[in-house]
């Protein structure tokens, strides 16, 4: 593994790709069926977040705000803003859950949301997510913990065929679906927490939803503690398992930092074979594994000649760099949004916690960029190519259906990258030829 630089020497972020904890919490609550995420703070935080996810998923996003004003910021401990919000939400819609999460403002003034939540007589989960701490991953993970801690009923018995899956925040809806399907193909019943695979997967619903539609149901959440296994994917959500195990110490925990590429997917399938007691996975799984191996060979030439910049959340970077490096790609630089112990696992020459300005300063070390749509300007400036991944991607449609994981997604991912890399190398050749003609 390469050199890891964790501490920025800058007093600011220039062209940040980092996102806030409250945004991560919103997204997690959107993975619960008929939920109304309620962001406690100034109205702008919710407005920015709503527009942001609307544009990324091309879907209506359910989200409300407690709309704290300068007056309530000083006088109210949250009691008025929150209670009034819940009253107003219920006057229009009937959510099965309110997902109350904080921002910087109420955390600075010290609102006691736990105390307020106790006064409220409707299903509600609260979580503290100040946006001057952590980031998207931690907001998502804290919310997953809160959902389990506050809703799951303790159990002592175990249902041997039940698996709870906790995905990290950067997995797109289709990836969660594919992962659920794979685990289910070994005979398990799978409940994902949170579950974006049915709520933000880009399907055309019956009507314009004012609440989240799809996702894990509140009733299912309550009944999670009889699962035989809790599977966490992504370092950021590793700690969620312990919260579930408190509800039933008999639950066993299996963790994967990622399930991308051949080795990463093999690890998951190997574990599934072991715990299901089967000798073979389904025929489709076998077939896709062979296709991935073939894809690695087909794409290795283009990938092996290419130096990459990847930017994103730490868990996403681990997954992407594993896929690329398995087919010979060199990740010259990985820029993470926030610090994480998992940065040590990223296969890259250099790993930094930083912003897109840091990436820009090292633009001579890489050729092809994999990152969110903010990297497009960077690419234009330096004549590089981009492959859009991560949040946000406002420039393209189809984000919920981008699948990079397991054998199948891994194969398509390598093809996509290799094709763009080849095109890029060809254009580089043409540029050189044009220059030679000019000077001749």
């Amino acid at each position, binding site marked *: 593994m390469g050199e890891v630089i964790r501490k920025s020497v800058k007093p*600011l972020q220039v062209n940040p790709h980092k996102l*806030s904890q409250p945004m991560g919490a919103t997204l997690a609550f959107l993975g619960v069926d008929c939920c109304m995420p309620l962001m406690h703070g100034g109205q702008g935080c919710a407005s920015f977040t709503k527009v942001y996810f609307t544009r990324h998923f091309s879907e209506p996003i359910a989200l409300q705000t407690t709309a704290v004003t300068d007056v309530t910021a000083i006088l109210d401990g949250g009691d008025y803003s929150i209670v009034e919000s819940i009253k107003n939400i219920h006057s229009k819609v009937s959510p099965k859950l309110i997902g109350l999460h904080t921002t910087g403002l109420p955390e600075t003034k010290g609102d006691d949301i736990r105390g307020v939540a106790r006064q409220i007589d409707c299903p509600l989960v609260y979580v503290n997510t100040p946006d001057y701490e952590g*980031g998207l991953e931690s907001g998502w993970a804290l919310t997953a913990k809160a959902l389990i801690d506050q809703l799951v009923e303790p159990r002592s018995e175990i249902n041997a065929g039940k698996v709870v899956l906790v995905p990290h925040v950067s997995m797109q809806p289709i990836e969660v679906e594919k992962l659920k399907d794979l685990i289910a193909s070994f005979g398990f019943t799978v409940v994902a927490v949170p579950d974006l695979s049915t709520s933000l997967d880009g399907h055309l619903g019956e009507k314009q939803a004012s609440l989240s539609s799809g996702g894990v149901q509140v009733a299912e959440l309550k009944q999670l503690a009889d699962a035989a296994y809790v599977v966490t994917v992504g370092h950021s959500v590793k700690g969620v398992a312990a919260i579930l195990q408190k509800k039933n110490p008999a639950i066993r925990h299996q963790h994967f930092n990622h399930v991308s590429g051949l080795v990463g997917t093999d690890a998951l399938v190997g574990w599934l074979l072991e715990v299901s007691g089967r000798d073979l996975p389904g025929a489709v799984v076998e077939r896709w594994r062979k296709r991935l191996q073939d894809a690695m060979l087909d794409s290795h030439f283009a990938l092996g000649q290419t130096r990459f910049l990847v930017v994103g959340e730490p868990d996403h970077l681990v997954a992407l760099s594993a896929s690329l490096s398995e087919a010979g790609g060199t990740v010259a630089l990985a820029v993470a949004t926030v610090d994480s112990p998992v940065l040590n696992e990223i296969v890259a020459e250099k790993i930094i916690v930083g912003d897109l300005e840091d990436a820009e300063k090292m633009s001579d070390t890489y050729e092809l960029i994999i990152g969110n749509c903010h990297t497009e300007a960077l690419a234009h400036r330096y004549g590089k190519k981009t492959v859009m991944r991560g949040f946000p991607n406002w420039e393209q449609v189809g984000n919920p259906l981008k699948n990079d994981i397991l054998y199948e997604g891994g194969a398509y991912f390598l093809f996509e990258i290799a094709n763009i890399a080849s095109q890029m190398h060809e254009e580089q050749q043409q540029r050189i030829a044009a220059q030679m003609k000019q000077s001749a």
Partner: protein
Amino acid sequence: MSAKPKIKDLLDESACEHNKTKKATCNTPTPGATTGGCAIDGAQIALFPFADAAHLVHGPMTCLGGSWETRLTGTSWTGRDLTQMGFTTDININDVVFSGEERLAEAIAYIVSNYSPQAVFVYSTCVTALIGDDLDLVCKQASAQHGIPCVPVHAPGFVGGKNLGSRLAGEAVLRHLVGTLEPEETTPFDINLIGDHNVTGDMWQYKPLLDELGIRVLSTLSGDGRISQIRTAHRARLNVIVCAKALVSLTRKMHEQYGIPWISCSFYGKRDTSNGIMAIAEALGDAALIERTRQLIAREEARLEERLVPYRQVFAGKKAVLNTGGNKAWSIASALQDLGIEVVATSVRKSTEDDKVKAREYLGEKGVLMTTPATQQAKIIDETGADLLLAGGRSLYTAIKKRIAFTDVNQEKKKSYGAYNGLLTLAEDLKNSLQNPVFALVGRKAPWEK
């Protein structure tokens, strides 16, 4: 005395016509029933098109993380386009406890030495306003140290909505920039364009016409703007507010301080564009200019009419429901009417009192001014047999359900519909929308459905 603008004064704008009867224009948000951006959002919208200035958000990550690079604001500035960049102090828990002023001062110094902007706008946010970071002091010291204007923008989100934020941005510009530099030369036809942000290049649709007439745009706030020009804005002969009324406080105060008169106009659609250009010429009061303008309008309108002929047939008898915000409630309605489309309803939910009066004017007695469009629009489509819904993305389902054409006038807009040429673009897009089979197809029943 504090250098911060008084929010109360800004809410009570004497130049608003409705103010004789009603005091506050900006509604207090309702907890749990609020949509729309906050003051810092509005302030950024107002100032962001200054591509030669750095825009530094002093606060935690949400404020900038979810908002930079969201707007397509064209610039002709040849230096690095700073509107394509995001700067934030991204304060942490330490700053919340021990103050973020030192970090802020260092951040400004970093930006100045690395990007050499013509000015730095420093936006306060809820958290840094609450912990009491002294933006005025830090900016004053930074201005002295770096020799460029560092402008504190006191528009933390919790003080109100976007409209108020735009006003607060105007206050900051008036207090710290306007009148700080003399223009190299002045002409009798110098104007300031206020409130057009050149989104999708709207301003570039009509500015060439002003150039042709010899009307010089001395400065803009802030479409395709330059800091050096807005500093000279006090020497203009006329302030022209384009569409939005949010910056009316600024123009009123410029009238009081510098004696600059102001007019308000829109450049959407044929009628409004012609009226707008003529209003500017008349306000400048030069007979020869007015005559030139009359000729130019006649020429442009004739050219436009000729090119609109093929569309007229497509739009004949077509009815539209319009659900959008603010001034667009009437400005786009006017453009649609110019194309021969009947506008049967428009939403005035987010409009100011002035906007509502204008909307009634354009739609006539029969037109519906929707106050709760979400529940009203489906019913109105049924009642009127409307063929087209123009709205934000959230209303897409209404169109699918009613199997009528849909045009997104909020998020998806990447082309300019401004002025004469923009009207042609709008016509083409609407024609494509009306003829697109997708709305009927996605509403089609599956083979297994009865």
